[in-house]
């Protein structure tokens, strides 16, 4: 699909990508460094123990939220800038544009997830070595954590595109998605601790290794839940996009 290449060209020729990547990497590095400096001052928390090290290695946890925002701006931003008109003039079968964006922003989310995970693990290994602390977490768990976090960011890139297609108003889509992720889902977690694992944020937290739910899923099952949400929202978004009048 040549339209995926077009999406990368669009990304390369504006600054959104760099802005988001720099913000995410700075934030992740900051959280990792602060954890290294202050973790031992928290009572009952020691960098020598598994729990604190786990928290250190999840410093890049914001990457999925960034990937979501990235995808939303990638889709809804075209309506905001008016570039949706030339986009649909060149590709009037609009669902193809939505699918191409989903693929492009999956790769974008993957790269955001991967770079932030690598940065955070680099800081963690170096920081612990400087403090002369052994890494007690098994390497396989660290790999699972970073891989899961990167995979979650990949799904969230797709989800962002889908949300932007369902809600083409960029501000509404951003506010809606952030309220859903940061307020609505945490509330639902409290009331439905069992079922919450099937929500986007619930499955995402399991896959990225930061669950706080009453019941869990295997990593593969969590990935399956996210993939199902992606498919459902993308289909809805494609349908809405196909029918929308571009005035």
């Amino acid at each position, binding site marked *: 699909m040549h339209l995926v290449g077009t999406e990368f060209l669009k990304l390369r*020729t504006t600054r959104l990508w760099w802005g988001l990547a720099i913000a995410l990497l700075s934030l992740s590095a900051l959280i990792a460094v602060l954890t290294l400096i202050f973790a031992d001052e928290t009572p009952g928390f020691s960098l020598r123990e598994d729990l604190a090290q786990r928290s250190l290695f999840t410093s890049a946890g914001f990457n999925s939220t960034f990937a979501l925002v990235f995808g939303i701006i990638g889709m809804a931003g075209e309506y905001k800038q*008016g*570039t949706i*008109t*030339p*986009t*649909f*003039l*060149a590709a009037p*079968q609009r669902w193809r544009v939505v699918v191409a964006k989903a693929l492009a922003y999956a790769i974008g989310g993957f790269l955001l997830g991967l770079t932030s995970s690598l940065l955070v693990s680099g800081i963690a290994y170096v920081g612990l070595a400087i403090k002369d602390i052994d890494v007690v977490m098994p390497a396989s768990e660290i790999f699972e954590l970073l891989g899961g976090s990167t995979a979650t960011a990949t799904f969230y890139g797709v989800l962002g595109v889908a949300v932007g297609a369902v809600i083409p108003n960029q501000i509404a889509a951003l506010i809606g998605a952030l309220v859903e992720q940061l307020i609505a889902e945490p509330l639902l977690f409290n009331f439905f601790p069992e079922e919450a694992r099937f929500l986007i944020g619930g499955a995402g937290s399991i896959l990225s290794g930061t669950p706080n739910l009453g019941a869990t899923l295997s990593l593969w099952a969590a990935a399956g839940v996210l993939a199902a949400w992606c498919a459902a929202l993308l289909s809805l978004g494609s349908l809405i996009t196909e029918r929308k009048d571009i005035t």
Partner: protein
Amino acid sequence: MAESKIVVEGLRKNFGSTVAVDDLNFAVRAGSVTGFLGPNGAGKTTTLRILLGLVSPTAGRATIDGQSYRTLDHPTRKVGAVLEGANFHPGRSARNHLKVVASAGRLDRNRIGEMLDLVGLTAFAGRRVGGYSLGMRQRLGIAGALLGDPEVLILDEPANGLDPEGIRWLRKFLRALAAEGRTVLVSSHVLAEMSQTVDDVIVIGRGRLIAHAPLDELTGSATGAVRVRTPDADRLEALLRAAGRTPQRIEPELLLVTDATSPEIGELSARENIVLHELVGEALSLEDVFLKLTASAELAPSGPEAS
């Protein structure tokens, strides 16, 4: 009539309870420049956007070579469109914008430089579009529309934002494109430049077709007014009334006659030995015809005709 490139049949579009386009029918000849005229809010933009597959019609259809836009294989190779509004990312340069257009439509990237030259933007091609004037954006829009070397060009109010020099450039440009055998459909509510640019005219008002004819037919068929200045206005007025005409006395020595031609009035005056100081047949401009047509379409109680 030559082969029709663009056909609009029974087209209707409702936005909620507002009827934007109301049973519109017309066909555009291949190789012509057709002006698509109407006051603001007449439904021009909606019609063009339906033609381009951006807006779905409530009823009827609009086709290019018998196909609806959304079923065309490589639409931007067949149809170039310049639409109103901000269609550019402000942070992207003109050259990069054209690269995106080329990539999305699978167009020849090697034409980008040529198109930038053609519209005179080469020197600014590396600058962000956010800093462009309206006229520069229009030129960039035209460059994008022509990138695919299309047979059909659809332009919505391209003269907006252009300075007089830009309008002259656009006019020559559209004529040159038609001379190459392309079909051009161009909308406008500013008529002055249109009269020198178009072959055919389609006039719509309130979403309905008001007139569709070659330009000279349209301006020629409508009768103009004749201005007569004479020191003997009383007698001429009486004579004209006796002949069943309805002259209007505008000034003590000036008559305006809408239902007689200059030769008739000249001959009458000569026969009756009336001295004329001025006899001017005012040919109706496209603008006059347009105002007349759209005013009658408004179905408003008709006041004195403004001229």
